[in-house]
C-alpha cells in the first residue's frame, strides 16, 4: 500500500558545520601531538626537527577548533558553565576536561620545544599522548552517546574518529616536514601508510555492517552511499582520502610534490568523512 506523511515536524539539525570543523581541528591537534611525541621519544636526533614542528603545530590547530565549538553555542558567554557543572553521565562533560587538560599540555609542550628545551618535554610527551588519544576517541564517543542516530550509534565510530585524527595529524606534519631529515620523513610516511590502512579496514567494516543492516541502519547506509553524501564518503573519503594516498605511499621513491599531494588528499578525506558522519548522520529523520 502506498503511504505518505501528510504532516510531521522535523526539527532542525542539532550539530552543524562548526561542530564538524571542531572535530576536524581537534583531531588534527591530537594527531600532530602524537606524531611529535612519537618522533621525540623514538625518533632519535634525526627526528628532532619533525618533533619540534609537530609540537608547535598541535596547539595552533587545536585552539581555532575550540573557538568554533564556542561559537556554535547559543550562549557563547556562558561557556564557563561547562567547567562549573559536571554530569558524570555526559560524554561531553568528560570531554571538556580532557580537551582542557590536553590544550594545556600541548601549549606547554610547544613552548618547551620552541624554547629549545626539548629534553625537558619528554615526560610531557608521554602524558600528553594519553590525553591526545583520549581527545581523538572522545569525539566519536560523544556521537555514540546519541542513540537516535544510527550512523553515530556504532561502536566503530570512536575508533574511526581516533584513527583518522592520527592520519590527518600526520598529514599536517608531512606538509610541515620540508627540509627535515629524509630518514625521518621516510619513517613518517611508512607510519602514515599503516594508519591509513587501519582506517580503511575500519571504514570498510562500518560500511559493510551498515549495508547488511535493516530499518533505520539500512537507511543510514543509503545516505552515506548515494547522492551528495555518497560522493563525499566514497569519492572524497574512501578513494581520494584513503585508497589513493595508500597507493602513492607504496612507491619506493617520492618527491616533495607527491608528499604534499598525499597530505592534502588525506586532509580532504578526513574532513569529508567528519562532514558525512555528523551532518549525514542527522539526515535520516527521527520519525
Amino acid at each position, binding site marked *: *500500500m*502506498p*503511504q*505518505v*506523511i*501528510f*504532516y*510531521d*515536524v*522535523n*526539527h*532542525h539539525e*542539532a*550539530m552543524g558545520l562548526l561542530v564538524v570543523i571542531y572535530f576536524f581541528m581537534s583531531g588534527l591537534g591530537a594527531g600532530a601531538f602524537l606524531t611529535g611525541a612519537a618522533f621525540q621519544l623514538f625518533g632519535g636526533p634525526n627526528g628532532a626537527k619533525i618533533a619540534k614542528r609537530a609540537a608547535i603545530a598541535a596547539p595552533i590547530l587545536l585552539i581555532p577548533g575550540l573557538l568554533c565549538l564556542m561559537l*556554535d*553555542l*547559543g*550562549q557563547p558567554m*556562558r*561557556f564557563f*558553565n*561547562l567547567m*562549573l*557543572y*559536571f*554530569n*558524570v*553521565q*555526559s*560524554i*561531553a*562533560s568528560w*570531554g*571538556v576536561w580532557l580537551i582542557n587538560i590536553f590544550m594545556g599540555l600541548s601549549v606547554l609542550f610547544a613552548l618547551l620545544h620552541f624554547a629549545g628545551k626539548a629534553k625537558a618535554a619528554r615526560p610531557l610527551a608521554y602524558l600528553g599522548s594519553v590525553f591526545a588519544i583520549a581527545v581523538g576517541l572522545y569525539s566519536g564517543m*560523544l556521537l555514540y*552517546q*546519541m*542513540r*537516535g*542516530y544510527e550512523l553515530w550509534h556504532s561502536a566503530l565510530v570512536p575508533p574511526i574518529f581516533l584513527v583518522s585524527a592520527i592520519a590527518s595529524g600526520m598529514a599536517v606534519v608531512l606538509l610541515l616536514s620540508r627540509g627535515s631529515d629524509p630518514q625521518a620523513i621516510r619513517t613518517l610516511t611508512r607510519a602514515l601508510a599503516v594508519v591509513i590502512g587501519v582506517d580503511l579496514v575500519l571504514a570498510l567494516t562500518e560500511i559493510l555492517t551498515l549495508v547488511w543492516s535493516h*530499518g*533505520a541502519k539500512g*537507511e543510514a547506509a543509503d545516505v552515506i552511499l548515494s547522492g551528495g553524501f555518497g560522493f563525499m564518503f566514497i569519492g572524497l573519503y574512501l578513494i581520494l582520502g584513503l585508497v589513493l594516498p595508500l597507493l602513492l605511499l607504496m612507491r619506493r621513491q617520492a618527491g616533495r610534490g607527491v608528499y604534499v599531494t598525499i597530505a592534502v588528499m588525506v586532509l580532504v578525506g578526513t574532513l569529508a568523512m567528519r562532514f558525512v558522519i555528523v551532518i549525514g548522520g*542527522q539526515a*535520516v*529523520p*527521527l*520519525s
Partner: protein
Amino acid sequence: MNERQTSKEPRSGGDREGLLNRREALKAGAVGAVGAIGVLSGYTAARAAVDDKSAGQVRYAMVIDLRKCIGCHACSVACKSENNVPLGVWRTWVKQVERGGFPSTQRHFLPRLCNHCQEPACVEACPTRSAYQRDDGVVLVREERCIGCKLCMAACPYDARFFHPEKKIVNKCTFCVHRVDKGVVPSCVNTCQGNARIFGDLNDPDSDVAKLVARESVQVLKPELGTEPRVFYIGADTGTMGRVRKEI
C-alpha cells in the same frame, strides 16, 4: 618435582628477576584493577543516585487515546499560544499519515510531544546539568544555565527539543508545569476536542491515567531505546509510530 624446586629457589639471578618482574606486573595489574573498580563503583553509585526516583510520590504522565483523536491540531495551537512558542518550532504537533488509494484509504493521527521519559536521554547527555528531571518526572531546562550546545537535542531520539530562536537556548514541552503546579491540566489537555489527551499522576491508582494504563494495552514510541517514555498511546497505528516508508 623439578617444577617445585625451581619455583622455591630460583637457579639464577636472572630467574629471580623474572619472578620479581612478574610479581610487580601482577601488583601493577591489581592496582589497575582496583582503580578501575573504584571508578566503576563511583559511576554506579552516581547512576544509582540519578536513577533513584523516589517511588510513592507523584509521577506525571499523559495518555493519548487515538480512538478519540480527530486530528484537529487544536492541541498544537493551544500549546503555541500558551507557551509563546516561536514560528517554525513546536513543543507539540500532530503527525498525520495517509495510506492506501481511493476508495480504500486511511488517515492516522499521532499527537507528539516530549515523552518526559523515565530514563531521559537528553538529561544524560547535557554537560551542564541544565537538562534535568524533577522528582515528579517532568523533564525541564534550566534556562538561566543552558549554554545552547544542543547536545540534548542530538540525544533525544524523539525530536522533542528545539533551539529557541529568540532565547538562544534549547526549549521543549514542559508538561505546562506552570499550570500543573497550580492544579490545572496542561493547555493541550484542556483544549482537546475529543478528550483524547488525558493527564495525571501515574502513581495514584485512582487517577485516569493510571486506570487507563492498567486497563488498556498501551504503546510508547521507540521502547527499544530504553528511555521509558511516560506518554502512552492507546490504539496508535504502528506504521505511523515508526519512520514512515513509501510502501508497506
